[in-house]
């Protein structure tokens, strides 16, 4: 256990080092919230992927494969491809170009600039939604941490969760975007290491592919070993559409705005793709092999399939120190998601609501604004910690809803705003509100959920429809520079964007 503690200790020391390196020279909100758009391809790629893949995605995929067999792959099949396409083609380059040319540093600010919304309607609606959903998301990460701390490590709950939350909050508060991105890179590398080593050990132990297929067939027949298993086509199709959330989750998309140059998307998208393949497919291999080795979920601690990662690590990884490194990888997954969400809330409160709405038209010094953003991060940590101990179960539900509901509502609005010049402010507002309303309706109507389990697809389709119909019924604002600012950049463009942040 001492060596496990040593691994966690070194992890926290490395975070402190990165924070000390990145906290110098933050003089403006653009530098605090977007790193002054200086982060390159590798940082953007790994940070976006590590933020998107929380611990529930990392160990949850293995747990799902343990329970459902080969058919669990449908959930990562579409999400991996959609995230790649979003970064390389559908969203990244256009969003970076437009936001750079219009000096927009948050997503609500992008929408306001895109639709010349002088009344700040879009900014306020979007910022409020981000605050609610992102805090719920952070709470879900803390709930995951508390589970790992108490059930796996056997450490005392309150001091351990408070320590992890304070460390995450501290480096986000001090170093802002750059600290979040570069700690994400380290955390992402730990996640990749964990999901390369542990699945390979389990795979070999279970006898490779032929041993696993025959083992699964003996345990559950075609339900486990078949590509269309017990859930049938409705499950496969439903899980495919869960990937739509990738288009509308601000803690991922804001990375596209912070990249140094649009040309960096070329390499960034490729690295992002490789990262997601290792995490997703590693989880599949681990879950399938784990099922053959342990055979039944009752043989795992707490009869919880997500414990397969911890159980295989404990049983097969040599040296306690390496076990500690692998387990710290799960912590890294939680912290790399929580830090990005904290920064989204900070930008929504500090930049979108205070600087641009409450103090609209008034001069506020950069020093005050950076300090405000930092205090907001601290407040988010405190609020989330309190909620963690009171709202455990509902927070997980809201977090799941945030991925599909917020993703389903915001995704179509962002996509249409980037590719359809005829779209109007009212269309965007209708898409946002309509998508969220549909997501809520779907979640709380049992009859609808019996048709399709997850609200991502209905929210996405309704948001798309509402945005399209209302845009056609209203007049777009005149913006002579829109065509040039919104065009897809050529890969040969020198789109450094540094001149207009």
């Amino acid at each position, binding site marked *: 256990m001492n060596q496990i503690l040593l691994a966690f200790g070194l992890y926290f020391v490395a975070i402190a080092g990165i924070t000390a390196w990145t906290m110098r020279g933050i003089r403006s909100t653009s530098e605090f919230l977007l790193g002054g758009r200086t982060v390159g391809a590798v940082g953007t790629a790994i940070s976006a992927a590590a933020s998107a893949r929380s611990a529930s995605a990392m160990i949850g995929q293995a747990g799902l494969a343990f329970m459902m067999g*080969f058919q669990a792959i449908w959930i990562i099949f579409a999400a991996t*491809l959609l995230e*790649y396409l979003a970064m390389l083609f559908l969203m990244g380059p256009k969003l970076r170009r437009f936001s750079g040319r219009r000096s927009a540093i948050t997503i609500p600010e992008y929408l306001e600039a895109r639709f010349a919304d002088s009344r700040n309607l879009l900014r306020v609606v979007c910022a409020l939604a981000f605050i609610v959903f992102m805090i719920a998301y952070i709470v879900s990460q803390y709930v995951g941490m508390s589970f790992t701390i108490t059930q796996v490590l056997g450490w005392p709950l309150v001091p351990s969760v408070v320590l992890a939350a304070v460390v995450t909050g501290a480096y986000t508060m001090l170093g802002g975007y750059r600290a979040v991105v570069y700690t994400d890179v380290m955390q992402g590398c730990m996640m990749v290491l964990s999901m390369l080593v542990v699945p390979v050990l389990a795979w070999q132990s279970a006898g490779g592919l*032929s041993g696993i297929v025959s083992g699964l067939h003996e345990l559950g027949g075609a339900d486990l070993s078949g590509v269309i298993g017990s859930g049938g086509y409705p499950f496969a199709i439903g899980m495919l559409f869960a990937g739509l959330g990738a288009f509308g989750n601000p803690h991922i998309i804001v990375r596209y705005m912070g990249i140094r140059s649009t*040309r960096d998307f070329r390499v960034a998208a*490729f690295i992002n*793709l490789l990262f997601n393949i290792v995490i997703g497919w590693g989880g599949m291999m681990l879950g399938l092999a784990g099922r053959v080795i342990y055979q039944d979920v009752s043989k795992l601690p707490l009869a919880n399939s997500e414990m397969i990662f911890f159980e295989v690590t404990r049983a097969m990884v040599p040296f306690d120190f390496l076990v500690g490194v692998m387990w710290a990888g799960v912590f890294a997954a939680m912290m790399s998601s929580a830090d990005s969400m904290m920064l989204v809330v900070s930008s929504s409160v500090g930049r979108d609501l205070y600087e641009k709405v409450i103090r609209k038209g008034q001069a506020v010094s950069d020093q005050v604004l950076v300090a405000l953003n930092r205090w907001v991060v601290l407040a988010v940590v405190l609020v989330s910690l309190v909620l963690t101990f009171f709202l455990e179960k509902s927070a997980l539900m809201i977090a799941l809803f945030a991925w599909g509901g917020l993703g389903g509502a915001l995704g179509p609005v962002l996509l249409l705003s980037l590719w359809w010049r005829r779209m109007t402010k009212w269309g965007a507002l209708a898409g946002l509100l309509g998508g969220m309303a549909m997501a809520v309706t779907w979640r709380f109507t049992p009859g609808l959920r019996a048709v399709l389990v997850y609200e991502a697809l209905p929210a996405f389709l309704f948001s798309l429809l509402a945005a399209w119909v209302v845009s056609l019924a209203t007049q777009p604002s005149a913006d002579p520079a829109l065509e040039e600012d919104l065009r897809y950049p050529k890969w*040969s463009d020198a789109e450094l964007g540094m001149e207009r942040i």
Partner: protein
Amino acid sequence: MNETTVWPQWLFLFGTALLYVAIGVIGLWITGRGSGAQPGERPRTSGPGGRGGRR
């Protein structure tokens, strides 16, 4: 178990991963074509700008 019955699962699990890697490589190749060197400029062979990128 007969080896042939493993092929669908191999394709489903590793085939999809390899397909995505191939899509990524094709994406790099297609976007790399657009970042050719300017006339009279020495092509870059590495770095975020890709081959021939102009910083």
